[in-house]
């Protein structure tokens, strides 16, 4: 017992999180799992109490933008400050002060559309490492799905060159009872199936894995091939023509803007009249309806039965779930649900809601990718990170910047960890689905799918 255990979480970063709301607490949960030294600052002492009881962290009660409070939280030695309070202005102020006092990296959450147009400018001038906008990210994720409605989820990698698409195998599909190897030989070998969820279990399949009805399959390929493949196996792949959005918050604004740009007709239902007016000014092409989105007749009037897509973006999770279930009943629309707060993911998964978006997870994934990149050495960098299937699988994109132990070796000669897949390599604008003869070159972007957690560097893939 007295022998020294060197397995102490090696060199965790010192991170201060200001603001302990939904995103703040999700970040706490994720980052404390990765072994960092965390301090939190919040004005509400009961919130601090709750969090310090749950995680191994230091809690400070006070205004996060105040110098003395930051000092108490250990700003002088901090590596990173993340400001995720409710107020954009406070977040920016926190980061500006932290930058001056502690000379650390800073991340701010900025949500208001007023600022979001100036994100690049703000980031450069204030010296922030990153500005995150969960509503914008959520809207982007929703729009990905609406542009490819057969998919449950679409995540993009390598700046949009590669996509990871998740879909459910419906009854009577030709994929049923087909092995992965057979699929590769006879349908297309330009895609790679990287994870399959079946009855609550997640598999990283090998060649002789046989697909069944109801499997939720994630595959990686480049954008064009993904559509061709889905078309070949009998899915509709054209984008939706119109979309009905309930709830006119910030996420709705960003989503409507994205959809309108893609030529999709948008109808927004919002309860607050003043907000309706604002939206109609900001989005002149959209139809804005003032009314209660939970009113069945109003939904009918707004054309729910003919809608090809239905997105529930109200601030109340329960309302969103019920709206989605209702929409599924009365129409054939592609449905997307936003869940802000509820943590009963197991229950939500069983409801068959189709595509579900969790803004808080999207935000924390982006931040964790950044944190891991900071922790890693120079030769590789985490670019993006997605948690799939309730955090049981991680998809990570690395940038191989320099020569390292994993570059210039063919995969068949490399000793990889179990439960791990090199899903694709993006090299000079093209996406390669790697075979045993391929290898990683410096400058490549490599995407890894794995059931292990906590990869910081590309060399972590070796056993």
């Amino acid at each position, binding site marked *: 017992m*007295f022998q020294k255990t060197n397995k102490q979480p090696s060199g965790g970063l010192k991170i201060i999180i200001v603001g302990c709301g939904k995103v703040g607490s999700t970040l706490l949960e994720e980052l404390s799992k990765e072994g960092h030294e*965390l301090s939190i600052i919040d004005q509400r*002492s009961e919130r601090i*109490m709750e969090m310090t*009881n749950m995680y*191994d962290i*230091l809690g400070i009660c006070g205004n996060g933008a105040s110098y003395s409070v930051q000092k108490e939280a250990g700003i002088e030695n901090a590596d990173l400050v993340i400001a995720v309070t409710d107020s954009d202005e406070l977040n920016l102020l926190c980061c500006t002060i932290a930058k001056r006092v502690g000379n650390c990296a800073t991340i701010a959450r900025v949500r208001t559309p007023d600022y979001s147009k100036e994100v690049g400018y703000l980031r450069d001038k204030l010296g922030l490492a990153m500005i995150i906008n969960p509503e914008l990210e959520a809207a982007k994720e929703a729009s990905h799905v609406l542009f490819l409605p057969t998919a449950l989820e679409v995540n993009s990698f390598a700046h949009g060159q590669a996509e990871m698409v998740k879909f459910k195998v419906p009854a009577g599909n030709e994929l049923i009872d087909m092995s992965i190897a057979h699929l590769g030989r006879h349908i297309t070998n330009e895609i790679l199936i990287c994870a399959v969820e079946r009855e609550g279990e997640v598999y990283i399949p090998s060649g002789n894995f046989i697909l069944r009805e109801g499997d939720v399959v994630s595959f990686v390929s480049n954008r064009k091939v993904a559509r061709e493949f889905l078309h070949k196996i009998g899915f509709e792949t054209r984008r939706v023509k119109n979309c009905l959005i309930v709830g006119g918050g910030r996420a709705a604004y960003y989503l409507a803007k994205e959809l309108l740009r893609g030529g999709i007709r948008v109808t927004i239902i919002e309860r607050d009249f003043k907000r309706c007016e604002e939206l109609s000014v900001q989005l002149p092409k959209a139809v804005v309806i003032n009314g209660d989105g939970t009113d069945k007749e109003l939904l009918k009037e707004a054309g729910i039965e003919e809608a090809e897509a239905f997105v529930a973006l109200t601030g109340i999770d329960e309302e969103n779930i019920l709206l989605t279930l209702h929409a599924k009943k009365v129409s054939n629309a592609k449905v997307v649900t936003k869940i802000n707060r509820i943590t009963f993911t197991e229950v939500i998964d069983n409801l068959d809601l189709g595509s579900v978006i969790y803004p808080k997870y999207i935000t924390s994934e982006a931040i964790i990718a950044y944190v891991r990149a900071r922790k890693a050495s120079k030769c590789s960098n985490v670019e993006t990170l997605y948690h799939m299937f309730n955090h049981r699988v991680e998809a990570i994109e690395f940038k191989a910047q320099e020569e390292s132990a994993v570059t210039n070796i063919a995969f068949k000669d490399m000793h990889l960890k179990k439960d791990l897949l090199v899903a694709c390599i993006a090299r000079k604008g093209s996406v390669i689905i790697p075979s045993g003869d391929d290898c990683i070159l410096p400058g490549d972007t490599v995407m890894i799918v794995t059931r292990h957690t906590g990869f910081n560097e590309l060399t972590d893939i070796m056993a």
Partner: protein
Amino acid sequence: MNGSIVRVILGNILKIAASFLLLPLVIAIGYGESGWKYFLITMLIGWAVGILLTIRKPKTTVFYLKEGCAATALSWIVMSLLGCLPFYLSGEIPSFIDALFETVSGFTTTGASILPDVEALSHGMLFWRSFTHWIGGMGVLVFMLAIIPMSGGSNINLMRAESPGPSVGKLVPKMRTTARTLYLIYFGLTIAEFLILLIGGMPWFDAITSALGTAGTGGFGIKGDSFASYAPHLQVTVTIFMILFGINFNAYYFILVGNFKDAFKMEEVRAYLLIILGSSVLIFVNIMHSVKGVWEALNQATFQVASIITTTGYATADFDQWNQLSKFLLFLLMFCGACAGSTGGGIKVSRFLIVGKSVKKELGSYVHPRSVKKIQMDDKPIEHDVMRSVNVYFATFMAVYVISVILVSIEGYSFGTNLSAVAATINNIGPGFELVGPTCNFGFFNPFSKVVLIFDMLAGRLELFPMLILLYPAIWRSRVRKLMIQN
């Protein structure tokens, strides 16, 4: 209740406690005493039971406040049961309840002894007695947190249950680093005292046991007259170190990281030093005529005040012979106790400060009925929860105190004996007045009273609630039901 995690914690505590026995084992072998084999036997028992308890992994590692409290209280009981075995097996303390009383008194840093003649004990046993103070002073669960990696943040519940004070916080984000820092400070100060005493001409065995006893604010001496026969400069050294160990360890941490401003600004530490100064002066004036020599009177007054307020319990004079005023002042200081976050016992200066401030606020609200005032300490508002817990603590403390006095009074000893015996044990001091005065011992009580006093010592050290929660039926209900279904 999550029983499996409690079981694993108990197992780990047993292993740690058994490992600590290595030191007295070495001392006993060094002195060529036959007692070493009893330490070895106890060590083997501790490790065997500990391994048995930890061999199965807990189902979940999550635990809440109730598990934290129950684990802490049970750990202290189990540890005491193990720790008393060397005394009992070797026959140096023939009665089991006496051996247990002595060990609990050691771990809880009380220093109340049942031994009529301390000097008859072998070196190994004497060292173990003093070493229990050191282990119990900072707390064995904090030690466990420092060395065993535990996942999750719920382990703050363990520290909260074991560390004294109205609100327990961390120094740095990681529990483990906090626990290590505390032990580092503790260890450093102990070594410093040991070296100074050694340079001052104390024999090394006396120096090490005195240092261990002071560090834990325990009070077991290795001489029959406690500290009276040592040279005055050694007494002054011990006085200073007693006061130092009664200071909130956060202050040392601030000094360690170079933040002197915050260290000297701590209201509690200031109040604590003021109380020591004030009561020393009063007692000094009061006993000046009865003691020959002004310096001697000053030395005696400060030593006794420091010893009682930090709840150490060393003595350089038989303060039971002093005037009523001095005696009563010392009696009050027993309840006052040291700072929160120190190794001392008692109710703690910070609680008195908070209560004092709320009385002042109450008075203010009579003058200006609609005035709003938030009570502050160290320039920070005190949360309603902390206020409430302090008030409840006072009420509970008085209840436990009164009930204990009633139970001890059944035996029929004098009023002062009963009052001070319970006060000296529940506040973890050691000597009281009259029959339990500094020149006497607790050996004469019957086993029932001793059990009451053992409970008081544990309750006082763990700040009541962890011990009381063991008596609360809801904690056990699910366990009992499970047992009944199994049968």
